[in-house]
């Protein structure tokens, strides 16, 4: 009655300098719910098999390290990395485990376990671009997976799914798109983000757009109006948040009256100004004339 899935895709999750927020976001996937992702087929006949995941796996210590080693020898898995990779001082700022007295860093693991992966997903802005850990003055030399790939000449296919945190749909939607269309047919932007989710500026779909066009700007947080003057990074941030919304469509950042922090962008969190400062002299593809000379 329930035939075993014909295609089983092993998934290895590695965690660098993370806050585990990418994981807690993923846990809140609505459709498919996380219980279905763990127990059922993601698509008919295709099952994700979570062979190594530090937040949910039963095993610890040596047993866990053995699993990782074994899983990494098989080809064809998807490697999901969250958290930044500190590269300074040989990566000593993030030691992920040890076996027989030998310690391994996230830097070692990314290099080693990317090799046999069919696809590497850098989940979250830290893994994609360095994010919070790489914020000025970047004390640990934190960087994204793509940078590590460049330095170490790793040529495995890489997809970035940034966001602080990323929306669960962006992760599972991307995996589904890869399964349905084939990796080579998934359209990515220059920053290796899937266009399905990161194809448009927040500004283009923002429900406050009418306020912006009319020059009606909120003067303090909690007021009605476009939040541009209060630091909204929507005009320079690519994501489908306004349409998709968050957590079962209960809300989203601009929806709750707060300015977008630009968390899917490589500049996050070190934009030209502060979070609550108006973007200055940033050219916006949409409504260029308005964005450059907003009314005070």
């Amino acid at each position, binding site marked *: 009655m329930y035939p075993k899935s014909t295609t089983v895709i092993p998934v290895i999750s590695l965690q660098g300098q993370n806050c585990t927020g990418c994981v807690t976001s993923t846990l809140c996937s609505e459709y498919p719910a996380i219980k279905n992702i763990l127990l*059922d087929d993601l698509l008919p006949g295709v099952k994700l098999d979570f062979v190594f995941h530090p937040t*949910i796996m039963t095993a610890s210590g040596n047993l866990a390290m053995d699993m990782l080693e074994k899983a990494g020898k098989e080809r064809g898995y998807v490697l999901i990395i969250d958290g930044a990779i500190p590269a300074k001082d040989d990566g000593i700022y993030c030691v992920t485990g040890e076996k027989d007295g030998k*310690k391994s860093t996230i830097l070692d693991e990314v290099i080693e376990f990317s090799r046999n992966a069919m696809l590497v997903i850098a989940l979250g802005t830290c893994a994609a671009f360095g994010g919070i850990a790489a914020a000025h003055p970047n004390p640990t030399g934190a960087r994204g997976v793509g940078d590590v790939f460049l330095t170490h000449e790793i040529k495995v296919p890489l997809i970035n799914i940034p966001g602080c945190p990323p929306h669960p749909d962006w992760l599972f939607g991307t995996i589904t798109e890869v399964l349905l269309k084939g990796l080579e047919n998934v359209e990515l932007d220059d920053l290796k983000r899937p266009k399905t989710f990161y194809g448009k500026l927040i500004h283009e779909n923002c429900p406050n757009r009418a306020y912006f066009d009319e020059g009606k700007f909120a003067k303090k947080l909690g007021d009605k109006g476009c939040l541009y003057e209060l630091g909204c990074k929507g005009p320079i941030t690519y994501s489908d948040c306004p349409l998709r919304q968050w957590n079962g469509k209960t809300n989203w950042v601009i929806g709750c009256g707060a300015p977008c922090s630009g968390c899917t962008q490589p500049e996050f969190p070190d934009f030209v100004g502060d979070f609550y400062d108006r973007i200055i002299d940033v050219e916006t593809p949409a409504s260029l004339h308005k964005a450059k000379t907003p009314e005070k």
Partner: protein
Amino acid sequence: MKKIVIHPITRIEGHLKVEAVVENGVVKDANMSGTMFRGIEMILKGRDPRDAVMITQRICGVCPEPHACAAVTAVDEYAGLTDKIPGNGILLRNLILGTRTVCDNILHFYILSGPDYIDPSKALDYSGSDEDLNSLKRFLEQGYSKPFLPRDEIDYRLDDNVTRTVTGHYIKALDIYRKGQEAATMFGGKWPHDAAIVAGGVTENVTADKIARFIWRLKEISDFVNNIYLPDVIAVARAYNEYLEMGRGCGNLLAYDSYRTGSNGIFKEALFRGGIVTGTSKYSDINIKNITEDVTHSWFKESEPLYPGSGVTEPEAGKPEAYSWIKSPRYDGKVFEVGPVASVLCTYLSKKDPDINKLVDNALAETGGSITNMYSIAGRHLGRVLFSKIITDNLNGWAGALKAGEPTTVGYSPPMDGEGVGLIAAPRGALGHWLKVKEGRIENYQVITPTAWNASPKDKDGQPGPYEQAIIGLKVSDSQAPVEILRAIRSFDPCTACAVHLVTPGGDLKGKYKVV
């Protein structure tokens, strides 16, 4: 004598390692090390004080909302807004912090700790109609096993029927976690990393329909806490009866006032009373000036123990006696444990709210224990579920007290220089943020997280931290699979990204790790 090293410790937040020395089946010594760091406090320097609310949430994505609330409390104080925040703003913060805390506690018991006590493979013999359990049964029948296997063979004690019931609750807990986060997101903006919590209040406006939508979501969460989570914790505590004695720790507790409550728009009371408890049941008021951070066994330049408001963080590579990136917070020079159990017991011993005290007494009676047993592996789980239940019992009232259409924030026009402190009860215990502003920018920022208290290394007097004390003296049945050690550590709900975020590393560190 045998040295056990467990690294990674999975099913926690972050990167943690334990090294224990076992002799004749008893742990003689233990060292805890956090092994990842970023330098968040250094990153905060020079930024707009308001940005601390955004940045410090990224210390931890499992418990970002307490960082937002502690940071915003510090910024409010610096900006002179503490008593000007509209009632709606205070209530919304309580609702966001409270709802997310309950989700976090549920996640901890079922998903993070659950596999130490329940055996999901019993679902293979399930014959009922629960769709979740049948999903799991199908999964196992098809030959899948991860992430549940492999595992060490340990003492699963719940009988098969109870095991299956609790396993079903493991799966249901995932749904409840999501639904609870959805409820809180109605006011917080998104999960994780709320955007709505800002200096002066909360940006989300209050409407009648949002209140209604929140309350109906809440009902499902409180049903779960009352009818599933609380009974399950008690069932596990009864099955693992000696765990009400094991892993005692230091025997001192510390908590901060948390969740501002009141009536008629005046919020001067705290739902959970702060304070310290020594000698199991002696309550005293807390004076935060007695908090210091010791660095004797941490990789920082030697200095006298300092108050966090004037704390400095200067790393020293290769310091020979050091073994952790975590400093050792101490109160009056002594070791204190923090956590939900501390909030519950400080409140129990000082406030004497009849409802809360009855709740604690009844739960203890059901497990067959007394106050002394709250200082234990099972006691910490019990403290956590009671903490969750007390919060849950108040969420409805807070939501009902919201005033639709009225302000949720006040304007922000801060002085150029100033200071602020934010102290709250996070899901893992006492959390403190210390902010110093000069010429409008952050000059110094220090955070002492719950896990810094609990996972701290030994101090200048050689006193081990609470985790270490909880492990030392434990009987280990199998040194290859020391589940007792893992149960003890997980009972604290470690959040190591929180504990070691404050490091400002520099120089060559390669030599350092040889010391470990």
